[in-house]
């Protein structure tokens, strides 16, 4: 998407990742800023369902034409689903970073960790 956007209802990690928390499951992805900095994403290497992710540590790699980048987990837990559609259409990460470009769903091990994430305005303020 050409225009920067940062949905109000998401929580943000300063490394340009977002989490959509729904009860004890959260969906993760990268922000508009992150996909814009990467340029055209051409490959997403998903982790395996059932593996654990730790807040602040990387769980996947995303590749643009020019570079590879780590994707950081904003919260800890066990992966319950990965976006397999990204194998065929990694460009969804650019085109719809908060919708079709989601990366994994995680069953949270410590939902209280969400208190440490940033709200939209704080995250966007940090981009200036």
């Amino acid at each position, binding site marked *: 998407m050409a225009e920067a956007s940062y949905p109000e209802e998401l929580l943000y990690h300063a490394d340009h990742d977002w989490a959509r928390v729904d009860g004890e499951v959260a969906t993760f992805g990268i922000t508009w800023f992150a996909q814009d900095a990467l*340029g*055209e994403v*051409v*490959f997403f*290497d998903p982790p395996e369902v059932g593996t654990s992710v730790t807040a602040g540590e990387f769980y996947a*790699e995303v*590749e643009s*034409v*020019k570079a*590879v980048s780590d994707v950081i987990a904003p919260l800890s837990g066990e992966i319950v689903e990965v976006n397999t559609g990204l*194998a065929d259409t990694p460009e969804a990460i650019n085109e719809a970073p908060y919708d079709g470009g989601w990366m994994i769903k995680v069953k949270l091990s410590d939902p209280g960790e969400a208190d440490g994430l940033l709200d939209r305005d704080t995250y966007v303020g940090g981009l200036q």
Partner: protein
Amino acid sequence: MTSRTLKRTSLFGCHRDAGARLVAFAGWEMPVQYADGVGAEHLAVRGAAGIFDVSHMGEVEVSGPGAEAFLQRLHSNDVTRMSIGSAQYSLLCDEHGGVLDDLFTYRLAPDRYLTVTNASNHDADVAWLRAHADGFDVEITDAIDSYAMLAVQGPIARELVQAIADGPLPARMTAAKGIVVGREALICGTGYTGEDGVELLVDPDDAPALWEEIVRRGAVPAGLAARDTLRLEACFHLYGNDLSTERGPIEAGLGWACKEDTDFIGSAAVRAMREAGPAEKLVPFKLTGPGIARAGNLVAGGGEVTSGTHSPSLGIGIGLAYLPAARATEGERFEIDVRGKAREGVVVRKPIYTKETDG
């Protein structure tokens, strides 16, 4: 990145107006891509025409009665084979046969040659030439500030430039002076994309008007990222990745550009390597599965990737790798350590992509 320390080409304003993303490259602030992105730019060059600002590349003029003998001593190729108006690819080697730079040289007049250098090597190249000029009746002029360089590349690039030129364009691997949009230009039938096209060497002050007219006529501005994916599909070497002083021309598959009988600096080492056979050879490869290998990734059993990217034309990972000579044969499969994951590469014929072979 402090842009004040970076040099800007005369086309900087054009890039900014076109929505370029600018990056530091070899001391220059250059467009890596424009608003539509590297994929669209790459495909525009393959399908129609793109225009690149390559003014960061250096130029050196060598002139005088000793120019031919001097370049014959410095360049790996046979300079005496150059007719007036011809272009020649050559290497600049050190005494050990290591590659200092790879060069395109144009013979402008009987005693006058213009050589295009890589931006990152330009100052060292000029110093190297000057340090080896004793005994030759030549004048060596660092001409980097005298020229802007535009590359117009793609199947309709010639047609597009022909429409704004005052005479027939020079054939491939030749160069001629001409007038383009009312400005003097050295028009060269060369490029770095695997497509037909021309490169225009012009006064930096004239470059923006040429750029704007060529873009207005349909060439898509293309940045360094597309230049890299295009050259890699075509299997052209990139100095600093595929070429260095650590490896020689024979390993790099550039023996064709070395004529050891001319006694160029480094020729003894190159001859010895050619006769003995190199331990490693540079080969083009494709990945057989998902992923992208990058420069620096190691090959299981020996060797390394020196260039790697995602091919916008093929939609897969491609690259150039040095492999042990015994494995450097078409069809050979090998394992690359891509950040801890094993990815399989297969040696392919070069170029990795052409419209003729891949539709």
